[in-house]
Every structure is written in C-alpha cells, then in structure tokens.
C-alpha cells in the first residue's frame, strides 16, 4: 500500500512539475538553448572528444545503444526494442530497432554498432570512450592489436546483436554516454578529420552549421525513428560562457532556457514568474577536498575525520553557495541508486574535532596547503571559507590558487597536501566508487591515494554479484567505509538548475548532467517568439 501511495505521489508530482506533461505536444518552432561551459566546442565527432560542452550538442545529433532516462534514473534502451540477458548475466542479445536511419538515409544495422565500438577501441582514434568498450569480452586483445575483431561482439543478423561481457556488470551504464554513439562508417571515412565539423548521426536533429565560438545550428531530422519526434524544427545552441550575458539573453527571450549559477539563483528563485519554471536536480557530481593520505597529518584517519567535524558544511553551502548545492552525506549523491538513506555523514562538531586532533597527536593543530582553481563553487573561494572554521580547532589552511590544467598535473603526481575539486559520482555507483580503489593510482583519479582493504573488498564482491539489491547493499557499505575513513572533506553535491520560459515543454531533470537535454521530446507552444 505504501509503495502504491508513493508511486501515485510520484506521478502526481511529475504531472505538476514537469513541463508539458499534461498538454499535447505540438510540432514546429525553434529552440534557442545554450552551451555554457568554458569556450567554444571542440569537435562533434563523439568518439574524439572528452568535453561536456561538446556532448550537450552531440547527444542530439547522434544516438548510442542506450540513452539516459531521467524518469527511470538510469540508462534505457535507445536503438534496440528489447534485450535478452543470459542466466550468468554475461551475454546480452539485442533486438535492434529496424527503423533507425542515419541522416544520409541509410538504415542502421548491427554492423554499424560493431564498427563504431571497434573505432572507439582503435588506438589511432585516441577515444576517451575506450573504457566503456573495455567491459566487452576480447576488447583488450583488439585494443592491443592481438585480434582483428572484438570477440564479445557478434552479429546474429542485421538487426540482432549479441554482446558478451567480461564481468556481470550492467552494460547500459557503459554504453549510454554520448561518446559511445553509433556512427555511419561510410560518412566517417569519407569525411576523415572533418567529420568533427560536419557530423552525420542517427539522432533527432541534423547538423546544419557551426559558427565557431558563437553558435551551432541543428534542424529536425524527418527520418528519426521515434514516431512524431522531434517536435522542434530547429535548435540553436548559443555558445555563451558568461553567466551575466546568459542572464540578459534569457530575460530578453533570446534564450528559451538557461542554466542558472549561484550568483543568479537567489534572484531567479525569488521571482515567482521564473521560479515556477525551474528544474532543480542533485547532479551526480560530488565536491570534495581530497586529503593526500601520504602527507604527514593526513596519514592519520582521526585527523581527516576531525576536519570533517570542524567544518560547518551546511553553513558554507547555504551562505557561500546561496543554497545552490545539496548537503553531503557520503561520496554518492541522493540521485545515485546506491545512495545510503541510513548512511551517516559528519555533523558540525568542533569539540569532537578538537578531541580527535588531540588523540591523533595534534592538540595544537597544524598547517596545510590546499590547492584550488578560481571556480566560484569549488575553488579557492570555498577554501577561504574554511579558514575561520579550521582556525577554531587550531588548524591553519593556506589556499593556493592554480590554473586548472596545472593543478591537474600536480594532482596526478601526488605533489600536494590537499586540493579541492568536483568529481563525477555516477551514474553507475560501482564505477564511481572504483575511482577510490587502491589499485587505482592518482593518475586515474584516486587523488587522495585512498587505500582500504575493506573498501576494495566490498567493490570486488559487488563486481561479481548478480543480484541487484545485494550489489547495492555492498556499494552502500563501501560508501559508508569511505565516509568513516574520510580521505576527503565532503563539501556538497551539485544542485543544477535550469530555468525556462513558460512556452517551453518537455525539459527533463537529468541527474547525470542537467545540460544533457534530449531535445527530441522538447516542444514549444504558440506563445514562443520563435514559433
């Protein structure tokens, strides 16, 4: 009964909050959206880029075997109608959709998937997507040149594909990201390098034009496989790295929807006309200060715990970030399927912090340097907020401002005492937590140098566990171990916010990255100035 009430409540909130769910979708019109991160896009070849800015556009030109479902909170099938899973959860047989067309009019078949995965794995492509394909059996041999085909990829017929995995992991998490898109071989080969500036995919929109540093224009692909979709005739991504310009462009209705930063958040939230058209989501990004566990005081777990107790995290999130952040518990955020609802994080307790420091042999505190970029949310500003709090327990933190790539180089080499960063913590909780496995070096993201046999063991068990709920329990335990060992200060999870005009319908609360909006379901009504 409780479950039923919960589902009804969810449905009700869905109807109330998600734009357009109670109205019939209408076709036509243009949609002006943004690409807000950093500067210009780098490439629209999904296999050759590692930038969020590019993926925002790519996921509407191209399609992967799976896609992210905001409703389900996990990847769902995109290019296949159904999948049969073997008993040992190692072999997946996909019945591919037979009406998927590339923008050049050709039908997509199993060969295209096999070719695309091979291209990603080919060293000459230098694709950041390789680790996703490495879950498939025989990927290593293909990558190292020992085999000419990936053993675990088998075409049964044009529209039936069998994928055999190395371990019983959920393949959706690896095969949904935009960088694992399926491309038409002939177009890629014909265009060569220029495929990145003139892409052909099988997504809802066709590429039209890219004015470098200014905008990317896409138009509706009439042959898209989902009947009636996409609704929009044209999509323009404005490349706008400046929050202040976005704010004005949104207010003059030049933009149909925009991302909201912490500077504008209180104003947008306080303006009823805008506030009712906002989507807020706890993104799968965890902001932390990584303590280098090889550095003097941080070798001791009690010191790391003490710092977590000494900092009034909720106050920083409320005052510094103006509430545009979700208070932390552990590494995994609430949108993660392995988020432990009964997990316990650290409360603000300076007395406990002093006690722990005393027990660790630092009754008078110590001094440490913390590196950070000039990022407004997870940069030096946040470290500066810690100074007075840590001073109360005798610890002195010295913020060191660094440029991103330079800091990254120091993070990888382990040449630091502490540093602040925003790290991806999903959507697959297993791969998110595996960052902190002891076999993972700093160069692969274990910046703290965390090393715990108990944590490693939980992950090893989860990796081979075939029962989903048992797997989640193991991951929850791993996260709890991580909390107790405190190799980081848990700062917050990103609260991403998207504001849109009342004529926009169908935007989704995408927890992996709110800007990853699948525009095939978005439509605008007659009040749009571009309809």
């Amino acid at each position, binding site marked *: 009964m409780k479950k039923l009430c919960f589902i009804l409540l969810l449905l009700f909130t869905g109807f109330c909050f998600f734009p357009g769910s109670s109205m019939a979708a209408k076709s036509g019109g243009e949609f002006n959206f943004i690409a807000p*991160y*950093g*500067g*210009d896009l*780098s*490439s629209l*070849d999904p296999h*050759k*880029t*590692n*930038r*969020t*800015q590019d*993926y925002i556009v790519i996921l509407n030109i191209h399609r992967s075997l799976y896609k992210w479902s905001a409703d389900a909170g996990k990847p769902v099938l995109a290019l296949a109608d159904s999948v049969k899973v073997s008993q040992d959860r190692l072999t997946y047989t996909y019945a591919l959709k037979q009406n998927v067309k590339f923008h050049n009019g050709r039908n997509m078949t199993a060969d295209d998937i096999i070719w695309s995965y091979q291209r990603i794995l080919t*060293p*000459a492509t*230098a*694709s*950041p997507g*390789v*680790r996703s394909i490495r879950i498939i059996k025989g990927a290593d041999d293909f990558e190292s040149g020992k085999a000419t085909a990936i053993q675990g990829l088998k075409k049964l017929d044009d529209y039936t594909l069998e994928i055999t995995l190395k371990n019983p992991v959920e393949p959706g998490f690896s095969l949904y990201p935009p*960088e694992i898109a399926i491309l038409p071989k002939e177009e890629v080969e014909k265009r060569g*390098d*220029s*495929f*990145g*500036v003139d892409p052909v995919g099988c997504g809802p929109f066709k590429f039209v034009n890219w*004015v*470098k*540093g*200014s*905008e990317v224009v896409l138009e509706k692909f009439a042959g898209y496989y989902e009947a009636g979709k996409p609704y929009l005739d044209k999509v323009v991504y*404005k*490349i*706008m*790295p*400046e929050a*202040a*310009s976005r704010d*004005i*462009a949104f*207010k*003059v209705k*030049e933009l149909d929807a925009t991302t909201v930063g912490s500077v504008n958040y209180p104003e947008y939230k306080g303006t009823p006309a805008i506030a009712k058209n906002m989507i807020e989501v706890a993104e799968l990004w965890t902001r932390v200060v990584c303590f280098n566990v090889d550095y003097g005081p941080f070798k001791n777990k009690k010191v790391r715990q003490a710092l977590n107790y000494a900092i009034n995290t909720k106050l920083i999130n409320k005052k510094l970030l103006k509430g545009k952040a979700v208070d932390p518990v552990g590494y995994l955020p609430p949108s993660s399927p392995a988020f432990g609802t009964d997990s316990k994080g650290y409360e603000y307790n300076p007395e406990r912090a002093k006690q722990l420091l005393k027990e660790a042999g630092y009754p008078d505190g110590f001094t440490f340097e913390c590196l950070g*970029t000039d990022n407004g949310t997870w940069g030096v500003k946040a470290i500066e907020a810690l100074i007075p709090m840590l001073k109360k327990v005798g610890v002195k933190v010295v913020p060191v401002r660094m*440029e*991103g*790539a*330079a800091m*990254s*180089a*120091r*993070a*990888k080499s382990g040449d630091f005492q502490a540093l602040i960063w925003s790290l*991806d913590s999903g959507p697959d909780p297993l791969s998110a937590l595996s960052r902190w496995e002891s076999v993972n*070096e700093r*160069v*692969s*993201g274990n910046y703290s140098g965390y090393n715990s046999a108990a944590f490693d063991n939980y992950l090893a068990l989860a990796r081979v566990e075939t029962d989903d709920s048992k797997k989640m329990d193991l991951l929850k335990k791993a996260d709890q171990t991580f909390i107790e060992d405190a190799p980081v200060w848990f700062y917050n999870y990103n609260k991403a916010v998207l504001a849109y005009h009342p004529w926009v319908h169908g935007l989704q609360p995408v927890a992996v990255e709110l800007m990853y909006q699948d525009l095939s379901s978005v439509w605008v009504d007659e009040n749009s100035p571009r309809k």
Partner: protein
Amino acid sequence: MTLYVVKRLLQFIPTIFCISLMMFVILNVLPGDATTMSGGMKRQLDAKTAENMKKQLGLDKPLHIRYLHYIKGLVKGDLGKSYLRSESVNDLIAQRLKPTIQVSLAALLIAVGFGIPLGFVSALKQGTWMDTLSMVGAVSGVSIPQFWLGLILMYVFSLLLGWLPPQGYGGGSLVNLIMPAFTLGVGYMALIARTTRAAVIEVLSEDYIRTARSKGLSEWIVNRRHVFGNTMILILTTVGLQFGSLVGQTVIIEKLFSWPGIGSLLVDSIFQRDIPVTQGCVLVIIGVFLIVNLVIDLMYVIIDPRIQYK
C-alpha cells in the same frame, strides 16, 4: 622606399622565429598537457588512454624533434593541427580572423571618429566646460572595465530598450556589431582623445603657430594647415600601436557577446593546452601588429614630407 619595405618585411622573419621558439618552450614546459583534466573536460582519462592519446598527438617525442617538425610546417605556412579540434590551425584561424578584424576596425572607426574631434575641441577650448566635459568622458572611458561596460550596454539596449540583440554574430550584421565594437572602442577612443589633446596643446605653443597667427591667418586656417598636420604623427603612432594590440584584446567582448573571434580561440586553447592553436593565434596576432606598424610607418611619409625612408 621599396627597398625599405622589403628590408622591414625581412626583419619580420627573425622576430617571428624568436617568438615561435620562446612560445614553444614556454608552452611545453607549462604543467599539464592536452590529455590533462582541465576546464570543461568530462572526466579524467585513465593512464592507458592518456598515454595512447599522447602518442597519437606526438607528445611522446622529444621537445627538439617536435620543434623542428613545427618549424618545418611554419616555413611552408602550415601552422599545424589542433590537438583537440578536428581542423588544421590554419582553418581555425581563417574562420576567426574575419570577425576579429571586423570588430577591431569598427572599434577603430568609433575611436578615431570620436576621439580625434573630442581631443581637438578640448585642446582648442582649453579650460572651458567643453574641455572638462570631454576629458571627464575620456578618463571615464579609459577607466571603465570592458566587461562592465558591455553588460551595461546589454542591459540598456537589449533588456530595457530592446533595440539590439544581446549576443551573437548574426553573420556579421551591423546590429550585432554595434555593442561589441562600442565596448571595445570606448577605451581606445578615450586614449586617442587624450593623446590628441596633449599633442594639439604642444603644437599650439610652437613658434610657427605664433608666426602664422601674427601673419593674420584666421584661427580656422591656422588649425587646419599648421596644427592638424603636425599633431597627426603622434596621433597616428598611438592609433597604430593601439590597433595592433586591439586584435589581441578582443577576448572579453568575444566571451561576453559570443563573438566568434580569435581572442576566445586563443584563451580556450591555452586552458586546454592545445599548443598548436595557441602558437598559431599568437603568431597571427603578432603578424597583424607588425604589419599595422609597418603601414603606419609608411603613412608618416604621406603626412610629413620631411620623413623619407631609404
């Protein structure tokens, strides 16, 4: 004259060579490379992938080999291939150069068109309210941060009045050009106004002006024949030097107005450690600077017949 131009052009070669070497060394010793986690990157590459990427980009080769390779290309006019973008640096720059030159020329027009008259008026009406007003304007123009001015313009002309589009290139249309050009040109205009004022005041105190006036020439003729010509050298030097550096200063307005120029390409490439693009952009900006200054030097001959190049 032709010999002089050829000589000057030949002097460009060692300059460009020295700059390319300096830049290559500096950019390559900076911590981090194109495979390092940096702004905008989705996630850290694992060690194996990063190593492979370095190999594909040729970053595993020794520094001197990479430099030789780069210089070989440069001699042929090939600036190399971007590490992250799917295009050659030549293509990337070619696409961005036109908007940069467009906005810089428009800013120059605004700066010269308003700056020189303002400077003249304020020098000729020294000490009057007109002088005070135009110099207050000039000092404010120099002091106003471009970013702030751009936002204020956007706020007034886009949000309040709705006359101009808040951002975008619009295929280089005039309505899209006005705000970026004005934002870029105001500081420049103020500088020209102040330089003009100082130059005119100096010339006005010269003996030949007193002579001209004592001959009974009207103020208009004195100003037109004697003052204007003699102040032009100094004004032209300022205009030239400033215009050369203007091309490299467009980054703020480019980011603010989504203007597709070379400045934002340069800044993005630095943060992304896309070294060939950074090198290409800097060389082009320096090239523009050198050429503009050569043109200005040649214009001296037209303005002042006493100057001759041999």
